[in-house]
């Protein structure tokens, strides 16, 4: 009941005209970025982050969250219309979505994806509403040792974000931590790794790194090959699904919601897993599994619902515990911190209006996406035809303005270019980028809580193991790390045996 009262207050904030306008802008911009092949939600959110700088905290976070789930939906459009997933999680939608488009059923495919995304998003947001108060009450019992252990849980996710190699993920994580050490030490005030440069004394901004490694790095990778025009063979006979489509999509949407929601609660799972699990579940439960891949609407409804339920549920660990479960959520966490807000239990205590306003905006944003996207489909189709050189040039120009406007110094533009090269080289060397971003954000919080803990215990490390919550979190971190390592080992072994 308490949660619902707080949510009602949140709606009052989210429904303010300016906040509605920024949610709308975020949905449109997010979808726009999401449909650009090669620029997924992570790069898209990082690139559009500067657009929120000039806004007040609530409006800025509302807009960024709308960009996030707008980008998730944008990826679906390209999967269905041009068989090119805008992001990895939409890849599975290509299988049946594109086949439907070729049969002239792109409209129903996109409509069902939008409806499923809406249902998944709303249910996950309700989950956040229900879990927010109890989880934050628990987290308010935390002192510095518990926070350090919680950060360890966050760091253990690094392994879950590893691609093929845990070793390379650890390298990426350590590099992220080292970058986070640049600047004035928060406790003693000593400069670290600043090399006498004044610009480095304040540290390297998370946004500069994110825009560089994800945004510029991604564009550099795209520039390697000739930029052919996007082929569009989708045909539109009808925009809305028929009664049979709705009947066949209902249960996949329900199942997709459940799968996406529960996997979203586990940080580090990644958006691909729920979509694949949902697709596999639908195929297994279908009476005609052999028809999957030929334009089955169940193959679009389930994964797309799971994708958006996951995206919204992934925000629950961020809001309640301050753990970013995915790279995109880490960027949103960075945006919170730039506004002087630390996501987690204290956000609900100290800035309840912002927290509940943003949560309420999730419902509104999801509804906006549903209402907006169907009539806007012809516009998105036209945008897909904009030549890539123009798009990439404009994005790069936007990056320059964004990096500069962070601190009003061109040094940040140079750093963004450097991190763009780093991102490009990391991708070539198969070093995952997500751990770097995650530790870059968690590093300073982790160092601060450990040093505070050791000040309390006068240098005694056992303080981390003698407090029950802290010990429990350390055990959880170890279990996460172990399970993720075993899963990767199994995956790699499986891939080897297939070869």
């Amino acid at each position, binding site marked *: 009941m308490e949660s619902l009262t707080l949510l009602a207050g949140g709606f009052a904030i989210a429904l303010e005209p300016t906040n509605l306008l920024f949610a709308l802008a975020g949905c449109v911009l997010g979808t726009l970025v999401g449909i650009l092949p090669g620029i997924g939600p992570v790069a898209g959110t990082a690139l559009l982050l500067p657009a929120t700088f000039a806004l007040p905290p609530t409006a800025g976070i509302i807009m960024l969250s709308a960009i996030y789930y707008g980008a998730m939906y944008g990826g679906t459009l390209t999967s269905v219309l041009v068989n090119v997933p805008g992001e990895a999680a939409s890849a599975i939608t290509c299988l049946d979505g594109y086949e439907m488009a070729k049969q002239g059923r792109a409209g129903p495919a996109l409509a069902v994806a939008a409806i499923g995304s809406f249902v998944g998003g709303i249910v996950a947001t309700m989950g956040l509403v229900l879990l927010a108060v109890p989880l934050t009450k628990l987290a308010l019992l935390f002192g510095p040792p518990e926070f350090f252990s919680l950060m360890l849980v966050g760091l253990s996710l690094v392994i879950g974000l590893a691609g093929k190699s845990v070793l*390379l993920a650890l390298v990426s994580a*350590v590099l992220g931590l080292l970058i986070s050490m640049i600047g004035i030490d928060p406790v*003693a005030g000593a400069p670290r790794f600043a090399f006498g440069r004044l610009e480095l004394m304040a540290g390297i901004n998370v946004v500069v790194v994110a825009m560089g490694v994800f945004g510029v790095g991604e564009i550099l990778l795209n520039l390697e*090959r*000739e930029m052919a025009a996007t082929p569009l063979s989708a045909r539109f006979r009808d925009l809305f699904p028929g009664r049979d489509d709705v009947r066949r999509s209902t249960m996949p949407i329900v199942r997709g919601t459940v799968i996406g929601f529960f996997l979203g609660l586990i940080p580090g799972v990644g958006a691909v897993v729920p979509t694949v699990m949902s697709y596999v579940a639908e195929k297994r439960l279908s009476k005609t599994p052999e028809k999957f891949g030929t334009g089955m609407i169940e193959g679009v409804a389930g994964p797309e619902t799971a994708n958006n339920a996951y995206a919204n549920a992934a925000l629950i660990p961020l809001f309640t515990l301050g753990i970013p479960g995915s790279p995109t959520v880490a960027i949103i966490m960075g945006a919170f911190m730039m506004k002087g807000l630390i996501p987690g239990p204290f956000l609900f205590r100290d800035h309840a209006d912002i927290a509940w306003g943003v949560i309420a905006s999730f419902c509104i944003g999801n509804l906006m996406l549903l209402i907006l996207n169907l009539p806007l489909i012809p516009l998105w189709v036209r945008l897909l035809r904009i030549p890539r050189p123009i798009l*990439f040039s404009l994005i*790069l120009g936007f990056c*320059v303005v964004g990096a500069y406007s962070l601190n009003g110094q*061109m040094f940040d533009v140079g750093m963004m270019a450097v991190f763009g090269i780093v991102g490009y080289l990391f991708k*070539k060397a198969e070093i995952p980028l997500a751990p770097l971003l995650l530790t870059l954000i968690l590093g300073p919080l982790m160092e601060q809580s450990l040093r505070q803990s050791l000040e309390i215990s006068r240098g005694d490390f056992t303080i981390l193991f003698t407090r029950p919550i802290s010990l429990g979190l350390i055990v959880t971190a170890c279990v996460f790390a172990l399970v993720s390592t075993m899963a990767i080992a199994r995956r790699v072994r499986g891939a080897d045996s297939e070869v």
Partner: protein
Amino acid sequence: MRRVHQLTGLACLLLAGFLGYNTLALPYYTRLGPGPGFFPRWLCAILAALALVILARASWSKDEPLPSNFFPERRGGLRIAIVIAALIAVANTMSILGFQLAMLAFYLLVLAALGRWRWIETPVLAVLGSFGCYYAFSMWLNQPLPTGRLGF
């Protein structure tokens, strides 16, 4: 991929050594607990250890072939080099040329490098991206962008 991983390991080892050397001047431990050098020094040690493991594994394990698209096409490599050079040039010349002129040159160069040169379309886009963006940010968003010595 062996050579790629060896180079990765070597680069990490050199970086760990360089950064580790720079942490020596920082106090490792203070009366109140870990000092400013505590975390960085441990991180450099961990990075060095990881680098050695990467080097060892790359040198002794079975070599995997490079992915077919590992190296960019010749023209692709050129495009990448021009974009990086353009970004670095913008960062270094904006204080002299100002946002408008620096970005005008940036757009013209990048659009040409990416193979999109049309005599009317390209300059129009470049002017919109530079002069247009400057006025949009200054007038509407109240976000001042740098003006150079030439007044642009």
